[in-house]
């Protein structure tokens, strides 16, 4: 048997029962990797229930910085769940390692010769060491972390420090946790030779700036920094933690120092219709207001999104996408709300979308979204996903520049109103489609108007005149055009040598891209990259796409939704864009993308150049 040998490049997969406290222990392991300065990418793959079902936690460590899910078998599997052990054992890469609880003897039929099977009597140790049933359950997890440390040569002190930090304020818990770690550490040392072939070392060029954080905490913090004060919400996985974090940060950062009152207001609503209604009311009344939801909540918000579009209310909606349709797979990731958000609601509507790809970007866009919304007086939907939102990511840190004051857009205050002859809420004074608005109560006799979802003239008076309606709808089109140059631009990455192929992608697909590029390079395919960061599309995207022989568009949905949007909005011939779609609910892998690119690229016969190019040749 050839054992895997690897330093700082491997995947550990933890198989547990959910509701037993494993997530926190597994997170401890990921954090330890981070402490070594290693890029680390943990993925919590959990079931849609509360307790007793199989749950998985996959940690990829990659000094090379490959942060996408690797996707194949794991180098090390820690199998703690009797329900799933058959599959868990199959999940070990040949030459890899299985750590399991051998208190109850393993069925000999499950034995594999091509891996190293390390049985530790974890339950037995717990039964011996602890009386409290809860401790017996919880410390199992800590024990295998201790064992892992010994196996992969992780400095024990790192775990000790992390435990001490984690239980700051609950010091009583520190010693027993360390004790559990030690038991695992010592026990495994007595059983097998440590370290094994897979090891960790402190990173050579650690990025000391990097942080390890989930996208939902980042987005919440973005909303705090962006000045959000009114929030309506309704619980739904995986968006709940956006609001929970927003509340926690506000409680910390937004309490009036004098009287302890709150400079924010959060309301758990009775459903999603109400949640977005609250955001709309708050925004109408001059506060930066938002809500956050997922899946079914998006559908339920659709009527109100249409109102906000048409009545021009600057709300922010944070959509943490999960696998649809309907209830779908509520604890799996996808990017499948692109179309339903871009064209949300009946009638002619177009919504502004932002696509963050990292926690840092969740933070930045989480704040920017409010500027964009107020500048454009329209809803802005930030399209995160479960993978980004609920998993910790290795990210550049958050930054905030003093030089960027909130852009509240075109709001007339009392003084300005005073100087205006006649205020018209929907007068396109500047020709950019964006009109001036007023906040209720601003002025005793000027600026009041009736906001409505029905058609109105430039002075906000109800009208059924076709020409007024058309004028208004055309202005909204103009405004959407204006948006292109206000919202986030795409990120373009060019290869050193000239590329004939390019990949267009967005959101969390980003984490798989550096590896994809390397895989393709190995196969002799040079690609340039464009990451879409916002809709409506900036003209750079159109230009970029025109520059390549073959352009691939990566979507984490079935129907190639981003490709569809590109085709529609940029008038690109559909056959010029080659969709690559992953939609099994797990984060996309570089392997998947690279293979698809290679297959599609091979498919394209030498003569079959894209139509656009050929047209160029004809002209």
């Amino acid at each position: 048997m050839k054992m895997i040998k690897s330093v700082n490049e491997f995947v550990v997969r933890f198989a547990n029962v959910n509701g037993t406290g494993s997530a926190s222990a597994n997170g401890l392991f990921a954090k330890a990797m981070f402490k070594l300065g290693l890029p680390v990418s943990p993925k919590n793959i959990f079931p849609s229930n509360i307790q007793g079902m199989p749950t998985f936690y996959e940690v990829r460590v990659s000094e090379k910085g490959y942060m996408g899910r690797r996707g194949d078998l794991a180098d090390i599997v820690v199998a703690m769940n009797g329900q799933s052990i058959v599959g868990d054992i199959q999940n070990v890469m040949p030459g890899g390692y299985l750590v399991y609880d051998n208190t109850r003897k393993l069925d000999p039929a499950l034995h594999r010769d091509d891996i190293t099977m390390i049985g530790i009597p974890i339950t037995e140790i717990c039964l011996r060491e602890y009386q409290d049933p809860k401790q017996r359950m919880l410390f199992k997890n800590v024990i295998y972390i201790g064992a892992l440390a010994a196996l992969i040569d992780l400095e024990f002190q790192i775990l000790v420090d992390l435990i001490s930090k984690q239980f700051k304020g609950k010091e009583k818990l520190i010693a027993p946790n360390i004790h559990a770690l030690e038991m695992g550490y010592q026990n495994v040392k007595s059983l097998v030779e440590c370290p094994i072939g897979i090891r960790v070392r402190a990173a050579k060029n650690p990025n000391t700036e990097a942080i390890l954080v989930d996208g939902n905490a980042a987005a919440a913090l973005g909303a705090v920094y962006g000045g959000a004060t009114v929030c309506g919400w309704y619980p739904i996985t995986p968006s709940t933690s956006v609001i929970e974090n927003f509340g926690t940060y506000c409680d910390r950062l937004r309490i009036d120092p004098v009287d302890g009152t709150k400079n924010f207001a959060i309301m758990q609503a009775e459903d999603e219709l109400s949640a977005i209604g609250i955001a709309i009311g708050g925004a109408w009344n001059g506060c930066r207001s938002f809500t956050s939801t997922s899946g079914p909540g998006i559908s339920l918000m659709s009527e109100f999104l249409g109102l906000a579009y048409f009545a021009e209310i600057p709300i922010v909606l944070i959509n943490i996408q999960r696998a649809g349709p309907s209830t779908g797979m509520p604890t799996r990731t996808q990017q499948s709300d692109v179309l339903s958000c871009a064209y949300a609601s009946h009638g002619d509507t177009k919504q502004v979308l932002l696509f963050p790809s990292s926690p840092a970007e969740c933070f930045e866009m989480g704040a920017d979204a409010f500027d964009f919304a107020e500048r454009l007086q329209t809803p802005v939907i930030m399209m995160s996903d479960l993978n980004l939102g609920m998993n910790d990511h290795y990210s550049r840190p958050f930054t905030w520049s003093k030089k960027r004051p909130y852009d509240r857009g075109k709001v007339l205050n009392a003084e300005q109103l005073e100087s205006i002859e006649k205020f018209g809420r929907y007068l396109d004074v500047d020709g950019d489609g964006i009109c001036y608005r007023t906040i209720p109560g601003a002025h005793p006799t000027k600026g009041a108007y009736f906001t409505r979802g029905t058609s109105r003239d430039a002075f906000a008076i109800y009208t059924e005149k076709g020409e007024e309606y058309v004028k208004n709808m055309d202005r909204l089109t103009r405004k959407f055009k204006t948006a292109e140059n206000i919202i986030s631009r795409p990120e373009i990455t060019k290869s050193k040598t000239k590329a004939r192929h390019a990949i267009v992608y967005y959101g969390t697909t980003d984490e798989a891209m550096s590896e994809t590029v390397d895989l393709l390079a190995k196969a002799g395919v040079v690609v340039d990259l464009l990451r879409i960061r916002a809709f409506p599309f900036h003209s750079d995207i159109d230009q970029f796409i025109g520059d390549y022989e073959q352009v691939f568009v990566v979507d984490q949905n079935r129907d190639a939704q981003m490709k569809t949007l590109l085709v529609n909005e940029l008038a690109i011939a559909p056959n010029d864009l080659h969709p690559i779609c992953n939609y099994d609910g797990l984060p996309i892998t570089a392997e998947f993308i690279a293979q698809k690119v290679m297959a599609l690229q091979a498919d394209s016969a030498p003569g079959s150049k894209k139509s656009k190019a050929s047209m160029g040749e004809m002209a």
Partner: protein
Amino acid sequence: MSYKKSHFQHPSLKRNELGLTYRDYEGSLSTLCAGCGHDAISAAVVQACHELSLPPHRVAKMSGIGCSSKAPTYFLGQAHGFNSVHGRMPSVATGANMANRDLVYIGMSGDGDTSNIGFGQFAHVIRRQMNMMYIVANNGVYGLTKGQSSATAKMGSTSKKGAVNPLADIDLATIAIDMGATFVARGFSGDTAQLVTLMKAAMAHRGFAFIDIVSPCVTFNNHKGSGYSFDYFREHAELVNMSDFIPIREDILVEVPENEVREVILHDGSMIRLKHVAHEHDETNRLDALSALHKAHHDDTVLTGLLYVDPNAEDMHDVLGTAARPLNDLTEKELCPGMSILDSINNGFR
């Protein structure tokens, strides 16, 4: 229903403390049917706000969709208004109130808007104790869509087309009390004096104030057999109490014989003086109010007047612990924690 409204103000029009006349509280011309009860409600709002000397621009008018929900266009032209979507005004009003606790919120809805599509939102905005006056122009019918029964249509009553309504009717006043409303009254579009008093008290009340206003739809629900015709109301109405609203600024020390009236001092120091007429229930006792309503419902009687009040009620912002200053008044300075705090937050993620 005249085509143009005159803007001429007669110099002798009575001016309130702000020096404003009744005309300053009017809105644009109504497009409702001639004789619609809703127009009378608008007129009462105008009068109540004028008499309370509310600065018109410090009022926010919130509504859903329906003839009744259009009505806010027809009063307080200097106030911002929001005609939102059908049945979901309560959430929009909630957000608005969260953003600025200092405006006076008038929500105007219809029975369909509130008891059918909006029933969930209605129940939940009450639970939040939001400081607003929520009025339902209740005609037991969908006016704007031409005559379907709503959930307040009386069981057994007949539609204009003759169909019998077999479904239990919802009494919104009862539900309001059940859900924790702290001011609940019922009025009639035809009785302006009572309406104006109830509205003034409702707006002075801190917390959720609900007024169910019987407001006949002359076009679709004023026939024999209807539970919301003028005639039906006159035959089945029973006045619970006569009330007077005495604003804080007026002298409230005038002596009155104790056993004839009950005085309720509201949180701002203004007072409601109640004179019992038929009923003997204590308007400040929730259980009393509920059983009076249940009994009346059982007896096909429509109680009007102030039904329940808790003068010491909390408001949503007490519940939330919000800053006294309106949130929409806060600036980047108060709201943005800045880079140095962000540095320490970053550190927490290392």
